[in-house]
């Protein structure tokens, strides 16, 4: 089954416009002024769905099934901690009565999600029915519906929108997880015949290679710092180019950036939050620093770790494709996340309107430690790379040094 940039864009726009329609309904009903920040479509391992919600955060919301040209499940959720503010806005005084609060969440969810689904049906020129909403309360990733197990695919497409309540630190999320087959079939029907096609299977294989690259980068972290590190998620997402930096916000990150050349070319970032950067740098250094501030010594250690993680991440692509992927020496970055991303998005944005973004995350159980890798490949070259990708070689990510020397 083949898709293309055109069909990804069309479907991403449908999800975005659907989320905007849902948000308008909410504003009309409640007076809550909110905007849809980012909508993206991601291909992700089924078991990693919703990993971004962490392990402890409790969510409430509504879930529906939908059926027709598209079949699957969708949710509208928000953090439980903020639910009283939201219920108060929906039904002043509604918090006093729990079943009242619940039914108001259900009802608003119902109306919002009708707005979300109707746009799809209209565009596709067909009907999509949805089931009545179910009120849900769950923790972390369990809040998301798994894709229905109609077959053995281990990767699924998910559409996600973040809706921010203006002036309040409250976000709503709409996630839609359609069944894989009908979705890819529809997307391939909405493909521009003239355009360059992307075989979906190869996108999935590339995702799998990325996962192994993340695994290798995690092993490198562990070997160098002694911090037991696990690869958590890797996914490939598609969004308008200006939405790439938007996902990062004002939080400060430390890490490295490189430009890689070859096919594909692009940019690769290794980022740590400030605390994780200090933790991992301490682990790297031969002597104790015991500093709670990020020093130049920490930064030098991070720079080399970033370099090694970058290689670990891209070497697998090079070995599968049997060519070399060169990268520049790492540049150390220490700034607001969004400001780190925007020059890279802008450099790509001179030649493309959308971006594929490859996101990986690694974590450790015992410590407050998290590291993220983000790759932004040139869109056209990624497509060429996928074209050249030999699915039978997709697991040949290792090079054999001993054979050569």
């Amino acid at each position, binding site marked *: 089954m083949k898709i293309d940039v055109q069909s990804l864009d069309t479907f991403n726009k449908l999800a975005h416009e659907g989320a905007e329609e849902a948000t308008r309904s909410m504003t009309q009903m409640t007076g809550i002024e909110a905007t849809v920040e980012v909508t993206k479509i991601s291909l992700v391992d089924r078991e990693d769905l919703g990993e971004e919600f962490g392990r402890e955060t409790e969510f409430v919301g509504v879930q529906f099934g939908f059926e027709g040209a598209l079949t699957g499940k969708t949710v509208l959720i928000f953090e439980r901690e903020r639910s009283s503010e939201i219920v108060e806005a929906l039904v002043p005084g509604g918090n006093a009565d729990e079943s009242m609060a619940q039914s108001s969440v259900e009802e608003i969810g119902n109306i919002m999600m009708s707005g979300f689904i109707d746009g799809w049906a209209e565009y596709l020129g067909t009907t999509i029915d949805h089931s009545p909403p179910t009120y849900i309360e769950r923790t972390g990733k369990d809040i998301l519906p798994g894709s229905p197990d109609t077959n053995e695919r281990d990767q699924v497409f998910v559409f996600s929108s973040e809706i921010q309540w203006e002036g309040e630190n409250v976000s709503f999320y709409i996630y839609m997880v359609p069944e894989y087959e009908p979705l890819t079939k529809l997307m391939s029907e909405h493909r521009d015949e003239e355009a360059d096609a992307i075989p979906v299977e190869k996108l999935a294989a590339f995702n799998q290679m990325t996962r192994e690259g993340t695994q290798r980068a995690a092993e490198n972290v562990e070997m*160098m710092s002694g911090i037991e590190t696990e690869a958590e998620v890797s996914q490939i997402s598609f969004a308008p180019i200006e939405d790439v930096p938007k996902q990062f916000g004002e939080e400060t990150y430390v890490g490295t950036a490189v430009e890689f050349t070859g096919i594909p070319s692009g940019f690769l970032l290794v980022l740590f939050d400030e605390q994780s950067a200090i933790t991992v740098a301490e682990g790297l250094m031969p002597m104790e620093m015991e500093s709670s501030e990020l020093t130049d010594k920490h930064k030098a250690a991070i720079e080399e770790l970033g*370099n090694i993680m970058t290689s670990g991440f891209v070497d697998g692509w*090079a070995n599968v494709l049997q060519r*070399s992927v060169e990268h520049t020496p790492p540049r150390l970055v220490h700034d607001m996340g969004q400001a780190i991303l925007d020059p890279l998005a802008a450099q790509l944005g001179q030649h493309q309107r959308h971006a594929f973004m490859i996101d990986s995350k690694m974590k450790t159980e015992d410590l407050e430690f998290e590291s993220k890798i983000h790759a932004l490949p040139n869109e056209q070259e990624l497509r060429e790379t996928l074209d050249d990708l030999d699915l039978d070689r997709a697991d040949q990510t*290792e090079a054999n040094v001993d054979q050569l020397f």
Partner: protein
Amino acid sequence: MAEVLIADDSEFMRNLLREILEEDHDIIDEVENGVEAVEVFKEQQPDLVMMDIVMPIRDGIEATDEIKNEFPNSNVIMCTSVGQEEKMKEAVKAGADGYITKPFQKPSVIEAIKDVVPS
């Protein structure tokens, strides 16, 4: 005691290599790019170069190629984070005598040096 030149743009990595090597070897200099590596090699002709690949100005494979052309009996071990087979082939072509991938453990560095520069 072999004379060793370390070429790596990362201060952190140079310190790490120095710590591993200085007990048994004489570190004659540390440089940060391929141009400096070639210059220092020509002046001092050490027994061994520990050569990074990704460096600014000139990369380690080009530097190795030039050193090996002029001094075929020199010893160069690539010491790099790059684990790509195509790159390793380029390194072999340039004449590299060994290839250590980062992150490394001390014993593997010692062993690689023993293989290349028998004492």
